[in-house]
């Protein structure tokens, strides 16, 4: 089951959000608070992962992949530019990093980064082609509903 997709830019503001399979849509106020919590968590956990690594090389493969709780699993894909793609699924879902990687490497690069109306300095992504690609990817995923 896929619950939500977040895209954060390098400044940790949430530039894209979409949710699925929820009994009712999230309250916008709670949503803003949740965005803040997730971005704060991403930052702290990244620091943590680097500090705790056995080999003290900051460039080593210390990046956060996913974490799992009893209620959900959170997958993260981070590009070197600081764009972060976060997917929330049920705890039994398989590894989703491949899907997030595809989303970044094809859809984000083609429809957002190359879109002249998108401002990399911190705009929300407001692009129909990207949204359509997200829907296609998520709804077409074998784990979308199960």
């Amino acid at each position: 089951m896929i619950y939500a997709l977040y895209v954060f830019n390098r400044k940790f503001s949430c530039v894209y959000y979409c949710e699925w399979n929820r009994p009712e849509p999230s309250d916008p106020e709670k949503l803003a608070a949740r965005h803040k919590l997730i971005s704060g968590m991403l930052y702290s956990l990244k620091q943590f992962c680097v500090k705790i690594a056995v080999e003290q090389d900051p460039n080593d493969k210390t990046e956060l992949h996913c974490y799992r709780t009893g209620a959900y699993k959170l997958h993260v894909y981070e590009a070197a530019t600081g764009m972060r793609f976060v997917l929330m699924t049920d705890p039994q879902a398989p590894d989703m990093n491949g899907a997030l990687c595809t989303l970044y490497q094809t859809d984000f690069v083609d429809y957002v980064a190359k879109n002249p109306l998108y401002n990399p300095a911190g705009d929300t992504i407001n692009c129909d082609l990207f949204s359509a690609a997200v829907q296609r990817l998520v709804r077409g995923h074998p784990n979308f509903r199960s």
Partner: protein
Amino acid sequence: MAASKDKDKAKIGEAAWARMDKVNSELLSLTYGALVAQLLRDAPSPEEASAQLERMGYNIGVRLVEEFLARSGARAAGPCRDVAETAETVAKVAFKMFLGVSATVASASAEHREFSVAFDENPLAEFAELPEALAGGARLQYSNVLCGVIRGALEMLQLRVECRFVRDVLAGADTNEIRVVVKEFMADDKPPDAE
């Protein structure tokens, strides 16, 4: 070890170039030429036009870097660990991938804070010729957009640099050389309210 790594970079660059969609290089150089000519007419001075080109390049660079990361295949080779490796990647992978030219790293400084990217062919300036008034004293940096692209792209990767043309075939030099000076290794951004 170092030599084999350089060869790897060249190979990655070749492969990336082969995967890229191509545009006609004459179309590119003529369009770019028209753009520079128009800027010269609009800007109060050739120096100002050069600065404007650099700013345009910067805005290209901050976007282009995403495509570079996604499509170059450099990610598989691992992140760049130092400025020397960054320099190799810019010259051998990025220049090949986006311009189709083979560039080399020249005269890197011992402290790894500066390097030059040298390339003989410049697709932007293929048909260009500078009049004496503009070439003298390097008043117009015809291909300054490239400096901007490098600055914009590296800034997104936490490396603040300054770039300028130190040798330009258009100004009578035997090769093109862009000098890149590292100003700052930027810290990661923090969330707005992080303690």
